[in-house]
């Protein structure tokens, strides 16, 4: 399963993009389940953000949900964090 996260905005306005494929990972099952739950409950359009807050675009197998600071669910927060930290980075 391919999971992509694009983070935009923030105080610095610096964009981050990262992608990971769960196939390469030992925690594949857990991550896929987390991604499915995020997809099921996520916003289909970008929610209104706050000044300098990050906006997130989470894409799982081509399907996208949106989130903004500071109102990420605990699951969204966990998924975003794993992908941005451990996924392959691009700009």
């Amino acid at each position, binding site marked *: 399963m391919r999971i992509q996260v694009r983070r935009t905005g923030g*105080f610095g306005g610096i964009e981050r993009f990262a992608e990971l494929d769960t196939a390469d990972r030992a925690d594949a099952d857990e991550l896929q389940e987390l991604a499915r739950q995020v997809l099921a409950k996520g916003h289909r359009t970008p929610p209104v953000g706050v000044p300098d807050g990050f906006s997130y675009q989470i894409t799982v197998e081509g399907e996208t949900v949106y989130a903004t600071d500071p109102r990420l669910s605990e699951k969204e927060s966990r998924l975003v*964090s794993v992908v941005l930290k451990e996924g392959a980075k691009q700009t």
Partner: protein
Amino acid sequence: MTEIQPTQFCTIVPPHVLDRLARSQDPALSAPARRTLEADAVQRTRRQLTAVAAPVPAPEATADVDAGADAEGAPECPQRTVHDCRNGTDLPGVVVRAEGDEPVGDATVNRVYSGLGATFELLLKEYGRSSLDGTGLPLNASVHFGDRYGNAFWDGEQMVFGDGDGEIFLDFSIPVDVIAHELAHGLTQHTANLSYYGQPGALNESVSDVMGSLVKQYTLGQSADEADWLIGAGLLAPRVTGVALRSMKAPGTAYDDDVLGRDPQPATMQDYVRTGRDNGGVHINSGIPNHAFYLFATRLGGKAWERAGQVWFDVLTGGELAVDADFARFARLTVSAAAARYGEGAEHEAVVKAWAQVGVETA
């Protein structure tokens, strides 16, 4: 000279802030802070006298909608509360320092407490405004938000600061201009309420950078030509190639780094960036009004918060700035605000030239 009676005077920026700055490894911060400490008694006396003797009334043409509340009975002391999220994301977290409390063991908490005080003091003493809403709104902040969260934001009610990842960003409470920037989002929300997209969004961002830089200059007692005009100096980790996140003096030059990329800010309309990302480039195109303010303030010389800052403040709080104002609309209002407050003299000429230099029409 007669001695001032210290009645009703609250010490907002405690000397330990300046102590800290004076010990800073950044000579741009430490040298002026040392000078400020040396001149501290004189400065404080002058500010007290200014505040007591001459709260400048706003001229009718640009009367602050909240000016009445400011003048009569609005609180003249801040009401600060700093909370600790303890690296979670539940806001606001637990109270760790309330107004009047002694400094605590956590430097982040103390920096934010002092930064709130410095911003409150500038608004009150220089612009006659009691807090963000003009009626003494309590100032709330949360620190240690999230796990190595590399950001700070205004959530509509309070400021939130992350610790930074340590790799690219350090603690977001380090630069006083970042603290004041977030508070200024609250000021904008309570006044012009500029929308957060495209040009009005970039103006919203720029007003926060202007206030951020002014609070830093005010704290350090710097004149426009002594100031560094950087936003976020001291925030980048040592391995990052850059001096800050933005430069009002030279937009586009703050950093150029393998990981962070290159500072994308334009200085003039010729390089205006059209993008849907970052709410239509609010942190990118803010470089243009930022640079206009820098040009205005340095052309005038002296303390930037006095005349240049006053003109910007008049526009923000004057009631004529529309939520969807573009750069040209904002620029024209600064020209009329300069004329209303100072006549058709140096201030008017300087602001017209500043906007012309960044390619924004005011005629």
